[in-house]
């Protein structure tokens, strides 16, 4: 039996029927540039960046939508493909306020250009997605210069009325990724394309601010926006050039156990993203609490010193004093009233390691089984 084989850039690759050219390429670590494509959603057909050339076909095809067919011969970076992509990138750059990078850039001197931008651009003008923008990356990759492109004004005002999310329509390239994330991944159905033609816009509920719509602020749209159209309300933008560490951990809220990445600058969490799209249980999704509810960590109200109640008032003491006092009191109560006169409420918030020690302490030291936690509440 003939097997299902296609050739991409002279590599013979097998495919399963129904797979797209893009899926086969990605599985084999062959890079095809994409923009509107969002994994696990249906093709949007808006950006035309993932076009590839198929031998024997006159028109280029969208690799994110076209299914692999037996004996296809595909070129992902042919001159024809590159010309088409450059044209498309130019078109997208011209669509809005993309004064970022590529204007006046000398390809030979990228570093000095970056430094120049840093000194020249006021923070307000500098796109908040600068350095983290997929369109900017594409423009650089394909050396598309926008100097000659006219700047089009944006008829839609930036929406700053919401908690957590700023919507800057002047930078929106109408790729529709946010809509895919909202309708096909989170299935919150809060946003869609509204109006048409030149007025096309991503709208929420009859074109209302997100806060007055069905939006539940999961922020999936923010996470998938390839440009600077959806940006966090928080001033991450001002500090984007600082040293940032990324730490993978587990969300502290409900029991789903979403995997997430904490972005840390100067011992402070500045942003949280869902982890990999391939990683269970959440496949990069988060909810509003997990993504945005982290202010408590750096809160000035955190307890920082042990307190002992003296004459009816809690006063700060040293750890030694507090620990001695607790050990002494518990020992005395245990001796006078027996171990079962003491109870420990451990917690569904703390780690397995903490919980294990709490029950070991209760059973091996206090010698009672009076241990429980808030599972029922």
């Amino acid at each position, binding site marked *: 039996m003939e097997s299902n084989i296609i050739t991409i850039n002279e590599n013979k690759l097998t495919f399963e029927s129904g797979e797209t050219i893009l899926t086969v390429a990605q599985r084999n670590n062959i890079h095809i540039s994409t923009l509107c494509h969002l994994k696990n959603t249906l093709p949007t057909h808006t950006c035309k960046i993932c076009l590839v050339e198929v031998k024997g076909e006159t028109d280029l095809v969208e690799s994110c939508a076209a299914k692999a067919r037996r004996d296809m011969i595909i070129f992902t970076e042919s001159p024809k493909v590159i010309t088409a992509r450059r044209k498309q990138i130019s078109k997208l750059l011209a669509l809005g306020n993309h004064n970022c990078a590529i204007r006046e850039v000398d390809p030979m001197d990228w570093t000095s250009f970056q430094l120049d931008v840093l000194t020249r651009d006021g923070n307000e003008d500098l796109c908040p997605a600068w350095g983290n923008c997929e369109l900017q990356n594409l423009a650089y990759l394909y050396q598309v210069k926008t100097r000659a492109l006219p700047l089009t004004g944006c008829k839609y005002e930036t929406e700053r009325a919401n908690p957590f999310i700023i919507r800057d329509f002047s930078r929106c390239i109408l790729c529709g990724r946010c809509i895919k994330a909202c309708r096909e991944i989170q299935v919150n159905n809060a946003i869609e394309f509204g109006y048409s033609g030149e007025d096309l816009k991503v709208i929420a509920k009859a074109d209302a601010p997100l806060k007055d719509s069905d939006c539940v602020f999961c922020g999936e749209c923010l996470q998938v926006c390839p440009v600077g159209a959806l940006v966090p309300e928080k001033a991450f933008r001002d500090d984007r050039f600082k040293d940032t560490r990324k730490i993978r951990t587990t969300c502290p809220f409900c029991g789903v156990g979403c995997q997430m990445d904490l972005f840390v600058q100067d011992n402070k969490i500045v942003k949280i993203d869902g982890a990999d799209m391939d990683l269970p249980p959440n496949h990069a999704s988060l909810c509003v609490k997990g993504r945005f509810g982290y202010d408590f960590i750096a809160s000035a109200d955190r307890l920082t010193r042990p307190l002992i109640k003296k004459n009816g008032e809690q006063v700060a003491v040293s750890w030694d004093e507090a620990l001695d006092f*607790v050990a002494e009191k518990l020992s005395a109560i245990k001796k006078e*009233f027996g171990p079962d006169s003491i109870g420990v409420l451990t*917690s569904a918030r703390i780690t397995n390691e903490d919980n294990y020690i709490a029950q070991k302490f209760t059973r091996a030291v206090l010698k009672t089984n009076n241990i429980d936690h808030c599972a029922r509440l």
Partner: protein
Amino acid sequence: MTNTIADIETSDVILVTGSNTTENHPVLSSFVKRATLNGKKLFVIDPRKVKLTDHADKWLRPAPGTDIAWINGLMHVIIKEALHNKVFIENRTENFEVLKKTVERYTPEYVETITGIKAEDLIQVAREFASAPVAAILYCMGITQHTCGTDNVKSLANLSMLCGHIGKPGGGVNPLRGQNNVQGACDMGGLPNVFTAYQPVGNDDVRNRLEKAWNTSGMSATPGLPVTEMVQNAYDGKMKSLFVIGENPLVSDPDLNHARKAFANLAFLVVQDIFQTETTKIADVVLPATCFAEKEGTFTNTERRVQRVRKAVEAPGEARQDWEILCNIATRMGYEMSYPNSHDIFKEITSVTPSYKGITWDRIDGMGIHWPCPNEIHNGTPILHTTQFTRGKGMFHAIDHTPPAEQPTRDYPYILTTGRVLYHYHTGTMTMRTDGLNRLSPECFVEISSGDAQRLGLDTGSMVAVSSRRGKIHAKLKVSSKAMDGTIFIPFHFAKAAANELTNAKLDPTAKIPEFKVCAIKIEPVTA
């Protein structure tokens, strides 16, 4: 959960009950919603018209506290129409005849008189649930927080076994755990009757083994008290001291008036937490602990997946690790307890916990593993009960409907049910420090149906006094299509108008869970 979260999308029929999934488990709810996009059937059975009902093929609305009746009703129809899985029942279960006899009188018409669910709707759901190749049940506190909570859960297990929907992909009986590490706290023996991995404290072999591992002797063989009874014992003066870790019972406990008196009665209260709370404020000693972002360790999620927690930032001030504080105290009490780090604690856990034995931090570095995982070459167990149940054969329990402990009366004509909202978590000590979340959900509210509001002559925004036999709170009314006539919902997050001033501390006799989901209240307007 008997199955995994990802499994939900592979079910043919999903039955969600007693779970406001989109608000309490938002990311998990996406799996349910995506399944419906792919043509899978969704049935929601809940007294509130929760958001998930928008995605459901059918929503059945039972009166609060009537779950056993509708579950028995479904089983009645399934058996009557011979849609039950005879092979599964024969090979994997016992006691079927007794169940059959019990559900015989739960005809759809009889069930309608108890629950208010239309007979024809019940029949439709029964048929579709039973004839699906595989169907999953998801449930949450709407099932468990009742005086008959244990029986509710057993009834759901009956239903799943009856159709043979358990022990295979896409099926199962799946409780959704509400806090990040409830599963882990239970697995680790944070319960009065068991050590880690649910090994009973009364079992001499188990206890001897742990005494040896922990180098101690004389551990108690008598199960201890659950939290709800510890509070009662404190009230009665028998419990002298409580050591509370990362909890705020003076907002989250039922019948707060009673709980406050109980706590005030303690000779010595220690609270270890990251913030001042209603509970730390009355403590004799407050110990500053670290939060998840300052810790190395593991959490176990609702699908039994053990996952890593990693330190991202330094703890503030002198705050210490929870385990470290407890070790410090233990050592001062004459039992030397010290670990260089939490990784060493995990290694000790796996040495005494059969279901975690094969899990190492290295193995879960990239992706978590579902327990049971008996050895280091075992890949974990995503689906439970595939070949047999823990006890061997699955036991059908014959259960009859019992009404809630408190019923509406002339003086207290409404039923109160409590829960959470999307934007806050538990008593709000964490979420209420984020401005955006407070903007989206600023204060307590009293959710009421438009019919009830009209009869009271009140509208959204009216300040009302809500009282039960135990307490009284003031909050604003919110007319909502989620509410059914006669039933009021109040979120329990807000200390200033704490729903638990009203709730009933009456317990399920087995699980000792309070009946948060039903108590009788009255509503009166408050004139400014």
